């Protein structure tokens, strides 16, 4: 199993780097070419969410991204925000997203989750095993 780890300061400028690395590792792992766009968007959304939470809570902690290739391509994006913040955000149904009375921030968060849920078949959002934080775990098949 090959693993690539990336940690970055919670700044929007670094989310693009995480996307680029995530797609490069996915390609190398053998994820089908037609899935790479989805991988790029999903890693971007998970990292954007983590950055937003760290900024909301004034946390300087690094956002962690771990990519591993062991039968499947598994990407874990880990934030260090209080659990209730991370898990309290439900996926909004489409009719809610289309409701233009939502604030821009609420809409962006809802759209982010709709994209994650819509693009990643194997998606888990759960508390981290140790300490405070949430892990967004995404799995894609690899062709061998």
């Amino acid at each position, binding site marked *: 199993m090959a693993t690539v780890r990336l940690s970055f300061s919670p700044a*929007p*400028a670094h*989310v*693009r780097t995480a*996307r680029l690395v995530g797609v490069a590792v996915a390609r190398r792992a053998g994820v089908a070419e037609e899935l790479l*766009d989805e991988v*790029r*968007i999903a890693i*971007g*959304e998970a990292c*954007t969410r983590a*950055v*937003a939470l760290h900024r909301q809570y004034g946390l300087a902690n690094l956002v962690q991204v771990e990519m591993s290739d062991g039968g499947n391509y598994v990407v874990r994006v880990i934030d260090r925000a209080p659990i209730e913040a991370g898990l309290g955000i439900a996926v909004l149904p*489409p*009719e809610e*997203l*289309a409701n*233009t009375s939502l604030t*821009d*921030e609420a*809409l*962006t*968060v809802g*759209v*982010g989750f*709709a*994209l994650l849920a*819509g*693009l990643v078949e194997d998606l888990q959002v759960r508390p981290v095993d140790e300490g405070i934080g949430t892990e967004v775990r995404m799995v894609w098949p690899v062709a061998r």
Partner: protein
Amino acid sequence: MELSLSTRTQGEHTVLEVGGEVDVYTAPRLRERLIELIDAGATQIVVDLGRVDFLDSTGLGVLVGALKRLRAAGGGLSLVCDKEPLLKIFRITALDQVFPLFATVDAATEAGPAA
């Protein structure tokens, strides 16, 4: 690729051509440009996403924000997009039901004032 923005007028419409990546880092610049256009009196804005190769939830939030501002002022915003990966994002988020979407700028401007 960085974000690029350029504006032109086509009939009654202000066309904002967007290129590159619209994400959490670059979306604030798109928001600023749209607010500038609206503050300068534009009421019918067509955002051409033809040269966009990445669009995330932050970018979508900015577009919805501009749509709301324009509608509140009696105007409208439509989008030009014919790339399947981007169209898929609009479908997944149900925002294809919120924005008038067109394949070309001409189709968007000929459709008359956006809803």
